């Protein structure tokens, strides 16, 4: 099992129970949606899965390893194999599109020659070909989101977590983005996508996890049920 959560609870410092007894398994190569109303705990779950936060009780296992117990070196390796698209993008405002994406390669110490080739390629993939030198703050919300996606996938991660990647996109563009995700998935990346866009979830006919008030209330393969 690639991703496994065992009886995971998360209580924030202010006493709020954001997740309650989550049990969950995601196999390698799956394409999974995570849905639920605002405040249901989607972002919290994703944050636990990529170890931005640690579970209050319970365990998160990635490839069988408890991620709370990884050494520093192993943590670095895990992160290099995990791509994350943050709900708030987390782009560097002062920099260009190119620099924002190249940053992910620089940080893992790839050569400049490689960066020069790969950044335009991935930008082409997310539909931002030729926009390298624009400042990210001059882009629309949807374009910024695609920069964030480009940055998350440029290292060919084994797992990609995306928190509301279509939140700011018009239907056409989110359609494009979903196609891109399917492509990435075909290339072997396991995806977990948090969204409350029912349209997309319904159309894609994939496995859907549903959170409600911090509890996992639904795990259905093949779409959305109302």
């Amino acid at each position, binding site marked *: 099992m690639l991703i496994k959560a065992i009886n995971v609870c998360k209580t924030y410092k202010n006493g709020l129970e954001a997740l309650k007894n989550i049990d969950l398994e995601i196999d390698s190569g799956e394409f999974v949606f995570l849905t639920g109303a605002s405040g249901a705990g989607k972002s919290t779950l994703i944050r636990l899965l990529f170890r931005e936060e640690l579970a209050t009780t319970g365990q998160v296992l990635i490839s069988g390893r408890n991620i709370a117990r990884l050494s*520093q070196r192993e943590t670095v390796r895990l992160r290099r194999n995990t791509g994350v698209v943050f709900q708030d993008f987390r782009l560097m405002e002062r920099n260009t599109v190119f620099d924002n994406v190249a940053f992910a390669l*620089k940080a893992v110490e790839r050569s400049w020659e490689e960066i020069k080739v790969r950044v335009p390629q991935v930008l082409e993939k997310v539909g931002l070909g030729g926009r390298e030198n624009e400042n990210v703050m001059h882009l629309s919300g949807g374009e910024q989101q695609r920069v964030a996606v480009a*940055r998350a996938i440029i290292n060919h991660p084994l797992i990609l977590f995306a928190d509301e990647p279509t939140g700011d996109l018009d239907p056409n563009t989110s359609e494009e983005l979903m196609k891109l995700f399917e492509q990435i998935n075909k290339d072997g990346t396991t995806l977990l996508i948090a969204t409350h866009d029912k349209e997309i979830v319904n159309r894609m006919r994939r496995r859907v996890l549903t959170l409600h008030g911090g509890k996992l209330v639904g795990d259905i393969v093949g779409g959305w049920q109302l």
Partner: protein
Amino acid sequence: MRLYSFRYIIPQAFKSLKLNGWMTFASILTISITLFLCAICWLLVINIDSNAQQMESDVRVSAYIDQTISSEDYPALQEQIEAIDGVDNVEFVSKDQGISDLEKRFGGIDLKETLGGNNPLPDRFSISATNKDVVSSVAKAVKKLDGVDTVRYGEGSVEKLFALTDTFRKVGITLIILLGIAAVTLVAMTIRLTVFARRKEIMVMKWVGATNAFIRWPFLLEGVILGVIGAFIAVVLVLICYKYAGVYVANTISFVYLLELSTIWLKVLGFAVLAGLIMGAFGSIISLLKCLDV
């Protein structure tokens, strides 16, 4: 860490320096002041030391001749002195020669003119001892001779100089410690500001899998650059000051001599750069330990 990663790390450090404008300036300034004072103290100490050593090695006993005896008796007196144990050689210094020596030592003023044409100096013998430990016994023996009025040698003056260098050393060390702490603190604050300004980038670097070393290097480098720039400024100022001090001293008090600039500049530079580097690195390490853990 790969070596070529410095290609990404070095520009980051310089970007941070620019980003922090005033703090960068303040840190460099404190480091410069610290190292400037350090270097000045050190230069004072080594110069006074070397002067004192020089004086110690050529302490001569001056035996002033009783003015009532006539110059015909001088050779006999000189022989008596030469016969004393521990005397190396004896030189006669007439009062005219004595006054012109003095004039030279004080930078060429016309002493006779100032004193209204009178020369109050007596004739004297200048006596050197075979070694510095017997100087005082020689002086005592000479004083007992008939025809010798007073005897003078550098009693205590060498000790005073050594005491002075000791004071300078202590003051210098205290100053260096206090200012060093201030400098390191300022560097640490500057780095902390950088870390704060770039916290988002640091987060992203972490989440894409940058190693701790890769994340920390730019900040370490920033501290080191602050230190080294501060050191260079200090060295330039110190050497300029030293050069002018040298010229001034040579023109006014010729019996004090300063070590040649060419023999010390490399030491000053090496010391300052090393100290600046250590202070800068230390400052950033303090900051990093506190706020940059994965």
